[in-house]
């Protein structure tokens, strides 16, 4: 079809899909706000023990007070403050994980997709092997070697998450390498390193942005799960998963200890997923290349 006409229809289509996800952006804004300004916003420190008010329910229930809006735990710690402080743990751990496995995955993917041949074969088989490792058992293995901690989570996820990135980056690289501008870069005498860094990588940044945004949500859940299982962050840190774990034994009479961190996880994840979906529509690299 004629280019101009095609452009018109593509734009229109994407416009219909691309309503800005205000709700998602709102959740992320709140999340980032408390991450950055948490220590000034939070009414209390995360390990401040208000021994006079232990296991106080939220403000709207009988026995609640405005001093502890979302109630307190059996040690008298303010739930709202701990959730606010905990946001920083969630994001920091998620980003560290991505930094580790993203770097490994992207580099291997670029090499695998561009060089092809036996190198590609080797890297892909390694991916298959890696993905075959049973996740929970490996997690326990890492933790039993390193001891349960945030660092252990980062090491475990960082070392296990890369094959997904490698596969996607490899695929993108291979389809980009078909383009004539890569052939022309070789004709110009560009080194392989230059072709990868200056021609291929900039063209997969969009894909990576989408991947990472969608991944943050998943990672918040994964780290929370590991902490919930006692494999990650250790008390008294206010990690959301850990808070749920601690609240578990009081669920019959202090439900707020487990529900509010859960809600926090849900909204943070929802926010990143909504924005990630939107980014995928806006930044669709297939449209840009044409």
């Amino acid at each position, binding site marked *: *079809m*004629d*280019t*101009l*006409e095609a452009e*018109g*229809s593509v*734009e*229109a289509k994407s416009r*219909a899909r691309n309503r800005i996800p205000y709700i998602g952006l709102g959740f992320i804004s709140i999340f980032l706000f408390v991450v950055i300004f948490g220590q000034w916003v939070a009414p209390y420190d995360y390990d401040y023990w208000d021994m006079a008010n232990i296991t106080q329910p939220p403000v709207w229930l009988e026995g609640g007070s405005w001093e502890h809006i979302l109630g307190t735990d059996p040690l008298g710690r303010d739930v709202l403050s701990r959730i606010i402080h905990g946001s920083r743990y969630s994001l920091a751990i998620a980003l560290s994980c991505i930094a580790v496995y993203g770097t490994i995955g992207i580099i291997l993917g670029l090499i695998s997709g561009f060089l092809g041949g036996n190198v590609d074969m080797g890297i892909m088989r390694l991916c298959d092997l890696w993905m075959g490792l049973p996740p929970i058992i490996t997690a326990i293995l890492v933790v039993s070697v390193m001891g349960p901690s945030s660092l252990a989570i980062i090491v475990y996820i960082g070392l296990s998450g890369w094959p997904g990135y490698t596969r996607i980056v490899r695929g993108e690289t291979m389809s980009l390498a078909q383009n004539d501008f890569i052939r022309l870069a070789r004709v110009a005498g560009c080194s392989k390193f230059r072709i990868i860094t200056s021609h291929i990588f900039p063209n997969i940044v969009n894909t990576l942005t989408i991947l990472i945004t969608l991944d943050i949500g998943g990672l918040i859940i994964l780290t929370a799960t590991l902490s919930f299982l006692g494999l990650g962050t250790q008390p008294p840190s206010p990690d959301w998963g850990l808070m749920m774990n601690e609240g578990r034994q009081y669920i019959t009479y202090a439900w707020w200890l487990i529900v509010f961190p859960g809600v926090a996880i849900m909204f943070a994840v929802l926010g990143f997923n909504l924005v990630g979906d939107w980014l995928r529509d806006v930044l669709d690299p297939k449209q840009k290349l044409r």
Partner: protein
Amino acid sequence: MQTSENILELKGVKTYFSTTKGVVKAVDDISFSIGRGEIVGLVGESGSGKSMTSLSIMGLVPQPAGKTVAGEILFHGEDLLKKNDEQMRQIRGDKISMILQDPMVSLNQILSVKYQIGEVFRYHDKSILGSLKEMCIGVLKKVKVPSPELRVNDYPFQFSGGMCQRTIIGMGIANGPDLLIADEPTTALDVTIQAQVLQLMKQVQEETNAAILMITHDLGTVAQLCTRVLVMYAGRIIEKAPVNTFYKNPSHPYAIGLIKSVPVLGRKSDRLYSIEGQPPNLLNPPTGCRFAARCEQAMPICTQEYPPEVSLEADHQVSCWLFAEKGEQ
């Protein structure tokens, strides 16, 4: 016009696209008609709106951004723009059918050829289900696919590009349409195969007496196949002429330039004639003649007002100020 009976008549058709940057006037006020048995070539460069014209006729303008906002498309005297989806579906593939450019993507690669040809019949006549296979073989025979009895069970990927396009032509004419719209039917094919397909189209046209609207950028295929030529530029038709008149005596400066800029075998010159500049952006088309900015003979009035369509002969119309006064006298 030439023939007493017009199969298709477009009157002042406008198809616009709304985009984030504004309204693209892809097809802007075009009128033409096609008589029974005519092969009309609609020539234009990419972005001139020729494909959008064909989609407008078929009622397949991409929704919701695009819309035919004005005009009438009369098919046997009935306005297609007033038909609903169900009525259009009945007409498409039956009375009007279409052949697209790329034969490899026009057929579904994972369904057999028999199934896909059969679909054409199934939609429009449910009574023939029993003899479906014979009818499919008949279609392949008609378009000269070798050993049709065997090939009918094949899948499109087992066919070459030329055979796929033959099959598509066969499907296009299977229901005896009155109008066949062919959008760049030979562009994706090799030269020797293109010649075969063009010959086939001509032959099929003679047998079925269907009118063909042939959309192309290739002046060579138009000269070979068509009886009449419509030239589109930036969303408007600028010249309509019989094929001999068009090539021997084109009138619009754009049409003249276009013909001169084609390299001709055996007539080597040092330089090709070339029309300088680029076609205008259809987001904000210039007022006045859209070719004025590239035209060597542009006059002050050309940039101010769109020229009226002037008849030089009974079947030769041109929209250009150079002829406007002549026509009025």
